[in-house]
C-alpha cells in the first residue's frame, strides 16, 4: 500500500483554510451563507401570517436570499457532494417561501419545513443533547431573524393583532439562546481555562454566549415598539448564528498539557490532521511520535533545530527526539514546509530515564493506551523498567511448554534493560530446571526465545526470518515475550508464538485495538497500551497463560504488485486486529507451572 492509499483510508483528508481536516474553506463559506440566508427566509415565512401586506423591499430581499440559498443548495451537490434529493428539497422550499410570500397563510408551511431542514443540516452528525441544543439555538435564532426582517420591511400598520407578545418573546428567545450557548460551552469540555480565550473554538463559544446575553439584555429593556428590540439585537443574533454554524469547522483545542503526563494532541499540518504523542513531557529528551500516515514530518522546539521524525525498530510510525526546556513551550511540526504548533508543558521535575531511550516507543505506546481512555496519569516508569510477576510466570510456563515439546536447545535473546535482564534470568533458570540448554545460534533444531525490548526484538526477528528463508532454522519455532506482540515485530516472520494471559480476539481487546486505530492514525495495538487502557480492569482480563500463534493468514500469497479485482480494499484496513493482516489464535490449553 503506498502512502496515498493509506491517506485515502484515513479520516485525514485535510482541507485548506479552516484549520480542520476534511472541511475546506469553500464548503464552510457555502455553509454559512446557505444556512444564514435560509434561516432568514424561513423565519420570515414562518412568521408571515403576523403581518398583512409585505413591502417591496422585503419581498426583494427575501427573494434574493431565497435565490442565493437555492443556488447554493444546488451548487453544494457539485462542490461538497450533497445528497441530490436533500439539495433539491432545500432549494425548492426556499424558492417556495419567496414565491408564496404574498400569501400569508401559504408561506408558513414550506417555512416550517425549511426550519426543520436547517436544524438538521446544522446538527448533522450530532445526536442526543447536542442535537437538542442545536435545535434550540437554530430555531430561536431563526425566529429572531424573521421578526427582525419583518419589522424592517413591513409598515407598522400592517402588523396584525396576535396573542404573540413580541416583547416577552424576545426575552424568551434570548434566554433560550443563552441557555443553548451555555450548554454548548459546558458540553465542549474545554473548561474555564485559557483555551476559552486562547483558541478560535473557545472564542467562538464565548462569542455565542456573550452575544446571546447581549440580545437578552437588549430584550429586557421595555420598549413601546418591540420591533426595535429585535432590530437592536439582530446583529448579535446574526453573528452568534454564524459562529454557531462555523463551530463544526473550527478545531477543538486539545487538553491543556500537564507536566509529566504524555501529551496526545492533534495538529492540522499540510492539509492533514495529524495525531501527535509527546512522551514523557518532561524537561530534557522526549520522543515525539506521529503515525505512518502522517508521512515525513520534522519537529523542533520553537526557535530550535528541527529534527526529522524517523522509523524506530519494532515501532510503527515516525519518532523524533527533542529536548524540551522547563515549563511551557511550543513544539513546531513541519510537513511539506507547512508548520503547526503543539503546546507542551514539561514542568521542572525529571522524567523516567527509559521513556526516551531505545524502549521509549513501547513506553509511549503504553501511555497512549491510557490517554485513549482519558486516563491522564504521570509517567513515572516504563514497561522495560521491571519484569512483572505475571510476565515472569508466563516466561516460566513458556519454557515448560518448550520442554514438553522436547525442544533440544533455546537461543535466548535479551537486552540490558532491567526487564530484559530479569526475563533472561527467569528463562535460564526455568530452562535449567527442565534440562534444556540455552545456547546462541540459529540451530535447525532450536527454539528462539526473545525477551528483549521492541528494538532488539525487531532486529532479532528480522534476522530469524532471513535465516529461515535460506535454510531450516529454529525448527522448534520463534517465541516472543508477551510484550512483543506488536505488528511490526511479529509480522516480520512467517509465524511466531507468544504466551499471553488474554485472548486478542475477545471483545475488550478488539475494542482497544479499534480505539488505538481510530485515535492514532491506524496504529496497531500493544500489550502495554492495552494494560493502561484497561487500568484496574486489566485484572479481570488477565487469565491463565496460553500460547498463541500469530501469522498473516490470507489463503493466497500475492505478488506485491499483482493487480486486484474491483471491490478490493487496497488498504486492507481491518481495524480491530491485533496484528495487521494477521491472525492470533490460542494453540495451547492453559499452561501449568
Amino acid at each position, binding site marked *: 500500500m503506498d502512502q496515498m492509499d493509506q491517506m485515502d483510508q484515513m479520516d485525514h483528508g485535510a*482541507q485548506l483554510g479552516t484549520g480542520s481536516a*476534511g472541511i475546506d474553506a469553500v464548503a464552510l463559506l457555502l455553509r454559512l451563507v*446557505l*444556512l444564514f440566508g435560509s434561516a432568514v427566509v424561513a423565519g420570515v415565512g*414562518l412568521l408571515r*401570517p403576523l403581518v398583512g401586506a409585505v413591502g417591496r423591499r422585503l419581498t426583494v430581499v427575501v427573494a434574493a436570499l431565497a435565490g442565493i440559498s437555492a443556488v*447554493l*443548495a444546488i451548487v453544494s451537490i457539485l462542490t*461538497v*457532494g*450533497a*445528497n441530490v434529493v*436533500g439539495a433539491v428539497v432545500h432549494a425548492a422550499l426556499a424558492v417556495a417561501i419567496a414565491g408564496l410570500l404574498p400569501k400569508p397563510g401559504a408561506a408558513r408551511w414550506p417555512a*416550517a419545513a425549511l*426550519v*426543520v*431542514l436547517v436544524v*438538521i*443540516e446544522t*446538527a*448533522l*452528525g450530532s*445526536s442526543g443533547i447536542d*442535537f437538542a441544543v442545536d435545535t*434550540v439555538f437554530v430555531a430561536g435564532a431563526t425566529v429572531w431573524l424573521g421578526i427582525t426582517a419583518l419589522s424592517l420591511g413591513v409598515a407598522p400598520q400592517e402588523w396584525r*393583532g*396576535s*396573542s404573540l*407578545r*413580541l416583547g416577552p418573546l424576545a426575552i424568551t428567545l434570548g434566554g433560550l439562546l443563552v441557555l443553548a450557548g451555555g450548554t454548548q460551552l459546558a458540553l465542549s469540555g474545554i473548561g474555564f481555562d485559557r483555551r476559552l480565550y486562547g483558541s478560535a473554538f473557545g472564542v467562538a463559544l464565548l462569542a455565542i454566549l456573550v452575544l446571546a446575553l447581549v440580545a437578552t439584555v437588549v430584550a429586557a429593556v421595555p420598549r413601546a*415598539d418591540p420591533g426595535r428590540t429585535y432590530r437592536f439585537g439582530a446583529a448579535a443574533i446574526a453573528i452568534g448564528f454564524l459562529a454557531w454554524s462555523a463551530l463544526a469547522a473550527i478545531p477543538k483545542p486539545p487538553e491543556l498539557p500537564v507536566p509529566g503526563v504524555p501529551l496526545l494532541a492533534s495538529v492540522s499540518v499540510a492539509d492533514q490532521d495529524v495525531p501527535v504523542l509527546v512522551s514523557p513531557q518532561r524537561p530534557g529528551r522526549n520522543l515525539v511520535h506521529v503515525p505512518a500516515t502522517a508521512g515525513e514530518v520534522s519537529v523542533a522546539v520553537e526557535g530550535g533545530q528541527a529534527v526529522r521524525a524517523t522509523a524506530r525498530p519494532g515501532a510503527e510510525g515516525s519518532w523524533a527526539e527533542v529536548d524540551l526546556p522547563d515549563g511551557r513551550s511550543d513544539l513546531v511540526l513541519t510537513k511539506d514546509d507547512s508548520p503547526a504548533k503543539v503546546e507542551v508543558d514539561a514542568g521542572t521535575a525529571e522524567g523516567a530515564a527509559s521513556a526516551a531511550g531505545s524502549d521509549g516507543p513501547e513506553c509511549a505506546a503504553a501511555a497512549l493506551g491510557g490517554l485513549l481512555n482519558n486516563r491522564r496519569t504521570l509517567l513515572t516508569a516504563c514497561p522495560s523498567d521491571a519484569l512483572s510477576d505475571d510476565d515472569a510466570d508466563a516466561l516460566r510456563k513458556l519454557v515448560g511448554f518448550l520442554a514438553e515439546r522436547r525442544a533440544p536447545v533455546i537461543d535466548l535473546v535479551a537486552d540490558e534493560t532491567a526487564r530484559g535482564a530479569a526475563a533472561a534470568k527467569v528463562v535460564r533458570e526455568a530452562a535449567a530446571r527442565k534440562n534444556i540448554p540455552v545456547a546462541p545460534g540459529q540451530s535447525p533444531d532450536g527454539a528462539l526465545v526473545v525477551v528483549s525490548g521492541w528494538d532488539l526484538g525487531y532486529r532479532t526477528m528480522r534476522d530469524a526470518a532471513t535465516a*529461515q*528463508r535460506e535454510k531450516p532454522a529454529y525448527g*522448534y519455532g520463534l517465541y516472543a515475550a508477551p510484550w512483543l506482540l506488536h505488528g511490526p515485530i511479529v509480522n516480520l516472520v*512467517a509465524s511466531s508464538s507468544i504466551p499471553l494471559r488474554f485472548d486478542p480476539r475477545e471483545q475488550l481487546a478488539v475494542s482497544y485495538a*479499534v480505539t488505538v*486505530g481510530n485515535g492514532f492514525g491506524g496504529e496497531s495495538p500493544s500489550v502495554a497500551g492495552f494494560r493502561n487502557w484497561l487500568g484496574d480492569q486489566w485484572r479481570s482480563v488477565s487469565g491463565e497463560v496460553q*500460547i498463541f*500463534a500469530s501469522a*498473516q*493468514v*490470507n*489463503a*493466497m*500469497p*500475492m*505478488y*506485491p504488485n499483482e*493487480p*486486484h*479485482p474491483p471491490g478490493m*480494499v487496497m488498504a486492507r484496513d*481491518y*481495524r*480491530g486486529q491485533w496484528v495487521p493482516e494477521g*491472525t492470533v*489464535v*490460542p*494453540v495451547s*490449553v492453559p499452561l501449568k507451572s
Partner: protein
Amino acid sequence: MLSNSPLRRKIPWRKALIGGLASVLAAGAVTYTGSTTNAYADVQVSMDAKTAADGKQYWVQNHLVPKDVAQSKADTGGKRKKWLLVWAGDENIADTLVKDVKNLPGSLGGGLGKIRNALPGPDFLAVIDATEGSPTYGKVVNTATVGPLVENEPHHMQYVWHKGDTIYAGALFAAATYAFDVSALPQLKLKGVSLPTQTLGGSVPDAYWTLKDGTSYGTYMGGPVVPGPYRYDNGQVVVGNGFAGSPGEVVHFDKEGKVLSQNPAATPQGDNQKLCDNLPQLGAPTCANPHGIQAREDLNTLVTSDYAEPRNIILDPVKQPSPYLRRPTVRTYDISDRNHPKLKTVSYLPDGPRADPKDPLHSESRAVMETTVTNLPGHKGAFAQTMQGGAVYYTPDITAREPHWREVFDDGSANKAIYEKNDANGASSNGGWIQTSPDDKYLYRAIVGRQKGTLGPDDPGTTGGVYVLDIQKLLAAGPGYQGSIDTKEKARHGGGGVLPTVVGAAPINAGVPGAGPHWGAYDNFALGADGFYRETDQPQHLAVSNYFVARSGLDGDHKVNLLNLGKDGKVAVDQNFRDEFTGQVGINFNRKSWPHGDFGNAKPHSELFVVADADLK
C-alpha cells in the same frame, strides 16, 4: 407600530403551526441518534449456546424475520420452503457509513461526525428463501450470528447437504469449525465448535466432506499450530513450520464437531523439493496444504487437492514470493478405516501447452484449489482444477496405485462462451468451485475471471462466470480414454474427441474483468407432487457467490446469484432472484441492514441448499 397586546382574535393556524413545529423539533431532538433506523422492525431473537473445550460459551443467535416467514407461508398456500444458507463474514470497513445522509447541502460532509470504524460485527449464516414462486424469494429471513469470536473469516461448508447432515462451517482466521443443526430451518442451533487447541496437527480449516454416517472430514490447509515435530494419531511424526504454514492435515469430526482423529496429509519423506517451497524452509519440503476434499465411500477413497501455504509474508517489498508456494499436487487416501484416512498417493499435475518456464505461477498445474469425484458406481474418476493455472484435470481411477491426471479442459476455451469479448487464454482464470452433477453427466464450474493487467500492462482481463461441461463421453470412455489438452490450439478451443465440451455458460458481472464467482453449490432438491422435497440427481439450479478472501486481494462484489439449469446443461442467471432492497438481480451482501442489525457489508464465501427435516422426504 407592532402590537404588544394580547390577541383579540384567535388564529387556529398559528397554534397548529407552532405546536406542530415544536413537536417535530422536540421529537427530533429527543429521538435523533445520528443514524437511521434498522430496516428490520420486528425480529425474533433466540440463542443456542454450547460450552466448548476451553470452558467458554460459544453460540449461534437467530434473528428471524417473522413477517416474511408468515407472509410467505400464507401467500404460497403453505408451500414448503427451500433455503439457501450463505456463510458470510462481517466486512467491518466503515460499515456504518451512510453517505447520503451525511451530506446535506448545509452540512460539512467530511467534517461533521464522520463515522469511524465501528467494532467488528458478528459473522453469520444467512438464511435466504430459495423457494421458487415464493413472495419472499430472495429475502433474508434469518441471520444466525455466531459468537463470541468475531473476524472468523467464514470460508467453506461441505459441498452438498443431505437430510440429517450437520452443517460444518469453517472459520479461516479463527482456525475453528462450527457444527450447526439445520433440521428446523429457518432457525439454527449450534451443535458444537472445534477450536484450534483441538486440532494441533493443522490450522486454517478449509472444506468439508460429510460421510454417510453423518461425520465429516475437513481439510486443514495450514501446518501444525506450532513449529517442530507433531505426532499424528497414526503415529507418524511430521515436522511443520508453524501455524498457517505446512504441512496440513485431514481432520475427522463427529456430528457435534468434536475431533475424532487428525490425519497427516504429508508423506514421511517429503515432496518434490523444486516444486514445493516452504517458508520457513523445512528439512523435508512438502506441498501438503489440502484445500478441496471429496470422497467415494464405495471406493474407500478420499481425494484432496493442495492449494497453497496459506499465510503471507512480504520478505522483500519488490521481489515476488515464490510461485512454488502454490501447489500442483493431488492426494488420495485409503479410507477403509473411516476414522484413519491413510495417505495413499501424491500426484503432481503436469503442466500444459501454455506453461512458460519464465512464469511458473500461471502454468496449468499451479494452485490446485479443488477436486470433485464422480458419483455413479461405474465411474472411478475424479476431476481437479487449478486457480492460477486455469485448467481442469481428470483421472479415470482414483483407486489406482498411481492415478494418472491429464489436462482435459482449459478455462480459456470456455471464456468466449461466458462472454464473447473475452479472449481464449485460461491463465489465471481464478477458478474456484468445480462439481460433478449427481448423475455424472455434467461438470459445473465457477471462475472469477482474470483481472485486468494480470498478464501484462495491456492485458484486458476476462469476465468470469459459470460454465457447464458435458463429461458423458469422457466418463463413458473409461480408463483408456484418449486425448488431452496438449496444444495451445486445444487450450483455446477445446480438445475434441471425448474430452469435455461446454454446453452452458453465463457471465456474472459481464464486461467487468475478474468480478465473477469464486464458489457455488447445486440445488439437490425438487418439490414432489405430495408437497415434500426430495433429493434429485438432476439439479435445476445453481447458486454462486462473488467473494474469495478480501485480505488476499481477491474480494469481489459480495453478491449471491441463482442460476437456472436446464437438463441439457444450459445455464442462465435467475432474473427473479433479486435483492430485497435494491431490486437488482442477485442478493447483495453489501447492504446496511441485516436482521441482526445495521452491521453493513458482509462477505459471502460459500452456500448450500437446505430443506428442513419436516419438509423433506
